[in-house]
C-alpha cells in the first residue's frame, strides 16, 4: 500500500478548476483514484454534483477516460464499458490492464440508481462502485433521499408546524450490498485518508464487483462551515453513526473503533440541518436515534466476532 506521500507524487485523476463548492470533500476521493493503483482506470459518473461540477463543456476536470450518461444508470453504463474491454482482451486487441470505477451520490445510488447498481453487482462485472453519501439530493438543492438521516431538515422535509425534518430512518445500503454476496463491500469516510485509500485500492484491484460507501459531508446541505467537512465526517464516525468497516467475501471486519464513543447529539447539533432537534419536544426522537446507533454498532461488532 503506498503511503500518502507516495500517493501525492502520482498524477491525480481529478484536476483543480472543477466547480464543486468551496470546502466540498468529494475531490478527496476522486483525486485518490489513480494515486492508489498502477492500473489504468476508466471512470463513470451518475448525474449529480460531481458530474456537473467536473464536466462543464468545453472543460473537463478528468485526466482519465470518463463517461456520464444519466442519473440512474452509471452501473449499467459501466457494465457496457467493462464488457467491451472483455471483448478486446478476448480477441487480443489490447494489452492494457484496465479497471473500472463508477461513482454516484446517494440519490443516484440509494434511490434512483439502486436497480441498475444491484443488477450490475449481481452480474459480477469487474467494477468498483463508489457512493459518495452526503445524505440528500444536494445537486438539485437539498431534497431528502433514502440516505437522509431521521430528523434532518431538507427542502422536501422542512421544519414546519406539524412535521419537522425527515420522518423516516435512512436505509442501510451497505448492508443491502452485502446481501449481493459480492467480493468486497466497505464503508469509509473522507476524513480518514489511509482507510479510504486502502479501500479504494482493494475495490479497484480485486477481480469482480466491489462497493464502497463513503461518508461525504455537504457544506450547504448539512449547513456547516466550508472548513468543517473533514471534522464533521470524523465526528460522524466517532459517534458510530457511520462505522468504518469492510466485508470481504462475506466476512465482516471493523476497521476503526472509537476509544470513547461520543453521543449522537454531538454530531447532530454541529449541523444546521438538525438544530431544530434541540427543542425538548424531540427528546424522544433523539433517544430513539441514539438507541438505534448503539444497536447497530453492537450488531456490527457481533458480525465481526462471528467472522473470526
Amino acid at each position, binding site marked *: 500500500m503506498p503511503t500518502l506521500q507516495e500517493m501525492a507524487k502520482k498524477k491525480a485523476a481529478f484536476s483543480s478548476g472543477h466547480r464543486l463548492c468551496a470546502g466540498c470533500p468529494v475531490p478527496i476521493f476522486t483525486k485518490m483514484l489513480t494515486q492508489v493503483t498502477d492500473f489504468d482506470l476508466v471512470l463513470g459518473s451518475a448525474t449529480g454534483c460531481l458530474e456537473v461540477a467536473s464536466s*462543464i463543456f468545453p472543460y473537463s476536470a478528468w485526466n482519465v477516460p470518463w463517461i456520464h*450518461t444519466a442519473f440512474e444508470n452509471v452501473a*449499467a453504463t459501466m457494465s457496457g464499458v467493462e*464488457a467491451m474491454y472483455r*471483448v478486446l482482451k478476448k480477441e487480443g486487441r489490447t494489452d492494457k490492464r484496465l479497471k473500472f470505477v463508477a461513482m454516484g451520490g446517494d440519490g443516484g445510488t440509494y434511490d434512483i440508481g439502486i436497480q441498475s447498481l444491484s443488477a450490475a453487482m449481481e*452480474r459480477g462485472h469487474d467494477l468498483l462502485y463508489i457512493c459518495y453519501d452526503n445524505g440528500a439530493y444536494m445537486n438539485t438543492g437539498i431534497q431528502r433521499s433514502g440516505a437522509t438521516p431521521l430528523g434532518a431538515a431538507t427542502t422536501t422535509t422542512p421544519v414546519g408546524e406539524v412535521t419537522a425534518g425527515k420522518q423516516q430512518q435512512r436505509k442501510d445500503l451497505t448492508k443491502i450490498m452485502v446481501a449481493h454476496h459480492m467480493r468486497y463491500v466497505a464503508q469509509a469516510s473522507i476524513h480518514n485518508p489511509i482507510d479510504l485509500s486502502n479501500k479504494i485500492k482493494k475495490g479497484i484491484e480485486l477481480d469482480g464487483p466491489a462497493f464502497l460507501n463513503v461518508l461525504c459531508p455537504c457544506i450547504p446541505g448539512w449547513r456547516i462551515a466550508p472548513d468543517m467537512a473533514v471534522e464533521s465526517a470524523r465526528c460522524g464516525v466517532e459517534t458510530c453513526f457511520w462505522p468504518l468497516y469492510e466485508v470481504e467475501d462475506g466476512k465482516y471486519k471493523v476497521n476503526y473503533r472509537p476509544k470513547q464513543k461520543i453521543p449522537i447529539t454531538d454530531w447532530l447539533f454541529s449541523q444546521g440541518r438538525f438544530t431544530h432537534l434541540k427543542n425538548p419536544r424531540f427528546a424522544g426522537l433523539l433517544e430513539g436515534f441514539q438507541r438505534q446507533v448503539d444497536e447497530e454498532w453492537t450488531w456490527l461488532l457481533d458480525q465481526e466476532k462471528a467472522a473470526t
Partner: protein
Amino acid sequence: MAEAMRQINPDVVAAFPITPSTQVIEDFATFVADGKVKTELITVESEHSAMSACIGASAAGGRVMTATSANGLALMWEMLYIAASMRQPILMTVVNRALSAPINIHCDHGDSMGARDAGWIQIYAENNQEAYDNMVMAPVIAEHRDVRLPVMVCLDGFIISHSIETMELEEDQAVRDFIGPYRGLHSLLDTDRPVTWGALDLHDYYIEHKRGQQAAIESAKSVIESVSDRFYRTFGRKYELFESYRIEDAERVMVAINSVAGEIKEVVDALRDAGEKVGLLKIRLFRPFPYAQIAAALRGAKVVTVLDRSTSMGAYGPLFGEIRTALYDAEPRPLVYNRTFGLGGRELFPDDIQELFAESRRYLQNGKVEKIFDFLNVRGD
C-alpha cells in the same frame, strides 16, 4: 433478426426480454452459448439498463446491438435520446407492439412512433426479408463517418416476427465483407488519449450541438441511398428511401408503413386490373423523413390516403403530419386525409382496403374530403 445479428457478430449485446422481441435475444443467446459469435451478452435487468450498457459499450468503441418492443422501448426513452445525442451507432431491432395501457402484446407502431424525435434513424420493413436486409445495411449506415447515429430497424410484431416466410439469407462471409470491421472513435478504453463523454452542455453550446446532430441525421439520407445501392449490387435486392408501387400515373395513392403494405399491393393489383389508377407509397425511412423525394413521387396524385398504425392523442397520426407537410407545396395540392387502423393488433382485411379505395374514389369525384381523420374497423361510433 437473430441470424442477422449472428452474421454481424457484434462486440456487445445488452438486452432484456419483452414479447414479441424476446425470441431475437433468446436465439442470439444460443449463438453466444455455442460460441458462434464473439459477443459479450449482458443480460441486464431492464431495458433502461440495456440501452445504458449499449451506450457504455459503444463509447468504449464497440459495435453494439439490442432488441426490444413496446413498453421496453418506452422504458429506454431517456437513453434513446442520449444514445443519439452522443452519436453512438447502436443497432436495435424494434419488433413493433402496442403500448400499455391497456396492456396488449400485438402489433401497432405506437412504440417506435413515440421514439421518432429521439434522434435515431428509423427504417421500417414490410416482411422478414426486408427486415433482415435492413439490419444488414444498418451498421454501414449507422457507422458512416458523416452519420454516426443509432438505427432502429422496425418490423411488425407477430404479423412478421412470428410468421414463417421464405427468404434469402446471405452467406456469413458476404455479410461480413459488406459491413466491414468497426472501431469506434474516441474510445473510452484508449487511456492514452482520455476523453470526457457526456459533459454538461449549457446555453452557450447546446444549440450548436443540436444543429450538428440535425445535420448528421439529414446526411443519412444520401448515405442510405448509397448503401442501398451497394447492397443492390452485392445481393441483388433493390431498396429506396420508400417503395413506390404502381404510383407513376396513379390518381389515388395510399401511404402506409410495414406489413399492411403487402395487403394493399394485392388490392392495388386487383383495382388496376379493373382499370382504376391507384397505387401505394410504402414508407421505409421515417427518420430522417424524405420530404422532397416523397413530394416528387406523389406529383400527379389527386387523393392521398395516409394510414397510421399509431395515434398521437389529441392530434392527427404521425405519418399523416409528415405526408401533409411534404405535400403542402405541391401544385396542384392533392386531397390528403388520415385513417388510423390496427391498434393493438386489430386486423385490416383486403375488403377494408377495397372500401378505403372506394372512399377515395368518392372523394376524387366530389373534389373534397368528407372526413379528414377517422378510425377504421372499430365498434360503435
